[in-house]
């Protein structure tokens, strides 16, 4: 009798734990699927390391990770480039994810310098773009577009990666210098890659432009 009572109690405990954990796991999964929207990436068109225009139009339809950097930077940028490089290599199977690094030091970071920096970081395709623009435009995009600080450039750029969805909406920020955000960025990238999306009003043109851009770069 005592034995039966013990086994029934233990069985009941297991059932309760199974129901409880199923609910918790389901809720956790749902919560991870709901990434917040922090804002829209505004219209902009800068120049990439190959001298081609690159802006919001080339971001639509793809998940994009954006950061601000400069090639002479010796403190945060090497870590940011390493983290970005790891993601670039980890997601090499997907053409739906791209990386965009925007220089905050255009006086030094000419297109040739950016191209050499890309090569030094093992960039071999169009998935990682390095952009050039004038300082006022870069500051405007950083502060007003991505809501990332840009004081006393080039040193005062943000060390965060901004995660942008296929519709050009900012969905997450990750401090590249902190291991914790970098430990969860992969999962959130996957989440956005799997997220259903509706093409913008002029999808054919935007997608076409981006595709052409990729092809042009591929032939270079």
């Amino acid at each position: 009798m005592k034995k039966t009572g013990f086994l029934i109690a233990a069985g009941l405990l297991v059932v309760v734990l199974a129901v409880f954990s199923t609910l918790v796991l389901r809720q956790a999964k749902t919560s991870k699927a709901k990434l917040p929207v922090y804002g829209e990436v505004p219209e902009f068109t800068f120049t990439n390391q190959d001298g081609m225009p690159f802006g919001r139009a080339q971001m639509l339809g793809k998940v994009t990770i954006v950061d601000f950097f400069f090639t002479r930077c010796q403190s945060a940028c090497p870590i940011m480039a390493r983290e970005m490089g790891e993601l670039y290599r980890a997601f090499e199977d997907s053409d739906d994810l791209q990386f965009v690094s925007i220089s905050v030091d255009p006086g030094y970071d000419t297109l040739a310098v950016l191209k050499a920096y890309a090569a030094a970081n093992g960039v071999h395709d169009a998935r990682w773009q390095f952009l050039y623009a004038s300082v006022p435009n870069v500051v405007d995009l950083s502060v007003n577009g991505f809501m990332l600080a840009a004081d006393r450039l080039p040193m005062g750029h943000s060390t965060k990666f901004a995660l942008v969805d296929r519709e050009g909406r900012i969905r997450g920020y990750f401090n590249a210098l902190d291991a914790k955000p970098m430990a969860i960025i992969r999962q959130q990238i996957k989440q956005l890659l799997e997220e259903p999306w509706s093409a913008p009003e002029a999808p054919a043109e935007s997608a076409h432009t981006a595709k052409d851009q990729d092809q042009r770069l591929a032939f270079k």
Partner: protein
Amino acid sequence: MKALRKLSVTSAVMSFLLIFTGGLVRVSGAGLGCPDWPKCFGRWLPPISVDQLPPGIDASQFNLTLAWIEYGNRILGMVVGLLVLATAVLAVLQAKRWKQIWVPAVFAAVLIAYIGWQGGQVVAAALEPLLVSAHMIGALLVASLVLYTAQQAHYVGHPEAEADSGYPRKVSRWIAVAWGAALVQSALGTQVRSALKMLMDAKPLAGENVWLNAVGPIRHVHETLGLIVAGLAVHIAVKLLRRSKQASPLVVQAAWALGIVGVLQFLLGVSMLVVSYADILKLFHLWGASLIVGLLLMLYVAVRQNRKGEA
């Protein structure tokens, strides 16, 4: 002594529950639900909305559900820590004559304090796999020590409990072998998980089958040893239930539990191999392994107690 028995049993049960909630944190991906420690987003109680985040805290990593799953484990850890501490204090006060009671109890209290602090290191190191494994094994050690304390307190209160049990010869050897194998199996499990984590980071889009195939031979060793441990668990349970002269109620219950958990672990393993690596299966697989370790320890101590009585 009765109070100590009750308290130590409660501590032991709660310690194994803590292993369950720890597993829940891991499989739900809530390990970084609170990016700081011991507070959560700078608060002693996790925020229930973004508006409650203190200024200067990065709001982009806030996920209400994950924060509360992680913090729930911390709260339970605190409760279990206090229970284990109370058990140790009571053991020192009431069972000074019995080293076999107060030594493991004190050791468990020191260890759980360390494990609690080490949980903060796990978060600080962004869930470094080795630290996660050490955290889990530490919790299993605490649970085992408290279980041992509870059982010894039971025998001091009931010295005749195993006097006429007459357990089959050599069964303690089988239990020791199974216990060692179960510990090795747990360590292998943590290695498989570490390898999977590295593969998932390196190729996040590859998919479960690719990651599992890439884990290498350690995965097959883990599967084979898992079969052996489950088989041994059932074998030991049957042997104790069928061949003992008069097994004590404690051993009858533990043997039944071991047999059932052994069979369920086998079924869980097969389901994970054949059907899917669903999170809920992973969670019970991990917990089942810790229960097997605890039950084997309990049976070993009972059989030794019987041998002592015979001698």
